[in-house]
């Protein structure tokens, strides 16, 4: 498992455009938004976090679109399927690699921009952890979506799973409100950790079943 993870990590690290591109887009969106509105008229601090949340959603959506596509097209996915007995380990490694190389920096960028827009520095670990968990959930979900329509343009499958991401967004928004009000954070966090663990352990199995359907 660790070997597969290392090789996937190495492969993704080499593809600068795949992991750096989404991060740059996120930074760009978060910078461009305040510039595009008249900040003298709006209290940006009140709704800036919503922009971060939507950016997280869209960037995780974009970055997972081609998560299995290249492996599928060059035949390496089929090869892994034939060689690897536990195909889900490969899927788990692939998704975790994306979470580590794209999801974690995204959570970092989101946290930095939260500080710039009024969140206290003491609250940053909470914000970071919450965004990391959201990314874990979103990456798993969109990886599943991508696997659904891998040979028909992954965007279709990802779009089909997009509605399922909305409860995650609602939960994330609620988490931020609990941080701002200083009450109830632990409850939301427990719910997110629970869902994160459940999704991260079940989704690779579902994705591998979906990919097998394409490969058989």
């Amino acid at each position, binding site marked *: 498992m660790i070997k597969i993870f290392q090789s996937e990590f190495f492969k993704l690290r080499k593809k600068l455009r795949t992991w750096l591109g989404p991060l740059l887009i996120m930074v760009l969106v978060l910078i461009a938004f305040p510039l595009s509105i008249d900040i003298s008229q709006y209290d940006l601090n009140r709704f800036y976090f919503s922009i971060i949340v939507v950016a997280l959603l869209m960037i995780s959506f974009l970055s997972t679109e081609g998560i299995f596509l290249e492996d599928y097209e060059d035949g390496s996915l089929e090869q892994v399927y034939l060689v690897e007995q536990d195909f889900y380990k490969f899927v788990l490694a692939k998704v975790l690699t994306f979470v580590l190389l794209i999801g974690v920096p995204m959570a970092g960028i989101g946290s930095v921009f939260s500080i710039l827009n009024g969140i206290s520095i003491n609250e940053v670990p909470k914000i970071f952890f919450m965004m990391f968990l959201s990314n874990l959930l979103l990456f798993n979900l969109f990886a*599943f979506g991508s696997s*659904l*329509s891998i040979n*028909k343009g992954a965007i*279709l*499958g990802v*779009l*089909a*799973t*997009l*509605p*399922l991401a*909305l*409860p995650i967004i*609602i939960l994330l928004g609620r988490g931020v409100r609990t941080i701002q009000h200083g009450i109830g954070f632990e409850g939301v966090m427990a719910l997110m950790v629970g869902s994160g663990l459940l999704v991260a352990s079940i989704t690779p199995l*579902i994705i591998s*079943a*979906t990919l097998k*359907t*394409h490969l058989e």
Partner: protein
Amino acid sequence: MFSSFVHRFSSPKSYVEITRKFFPYISLFGFLLLLIGWIWGLAFAPEDAVQGNSYRIIYLHVPASIFAQLVYFFMSICALIHLVWRVKLAAYLIKSAALVGAMITFIALFSGSIWGIPTWGTWWQWDARITSTLILFIMYLGIITLHGSFSNLEKADRLMSILVVVGVVNIPIIKKSVDWWSTLHQSASITISDGTSIDPSMLYPLLISIFGMGLTLISLGILSSKFYILTREKNKKWVQSYV
């Protein structure tokens, strides 16, 4: 035992034959019940003390909302049967039910919107129940689109079933959204544990509408699935002799 039961009654041919016998009764009975429920509710049920006559839309909105979720639940059971026992008929039923589900969810959203004007003063509110029902509607459309995008229909059936099973997580969220989030939408007026808070003069036509709507949707589902089965199995001998 269940497995043999499933396989025995799961051939598209026997489904078409069985539904052929029951379809006229189900559709007629459903239509009559719906008609009675609506006429009773719209013309004879008393006016509501707070909402006046605008509440009468419940005779359309409540049954539509209930079945918007129930149709998805039915699809998820079919999806499980298709994935576990590879029963073709289950996939055909999912595809047909998705169309009915999308239609009834749209009716639920639209009638809720109309009801929103006199009660909340707005057509739309980004409220937990309404938003989660909208998500359900988009899920139905996603399932239909995903299935339609594959030329290999067996593969499309399997992928659609997987998506339906995963999407079932949305159903408890919709159901409990009015309890979990602070929301404009009222919580359920009829519950198993607490009974009902609706006066019997308004409740009976509502229950009749719910049953009528259920049977009407079943007959619509039967029609849609029969059409789909005959299209999918058009090269089989039994279809040629049936048509």
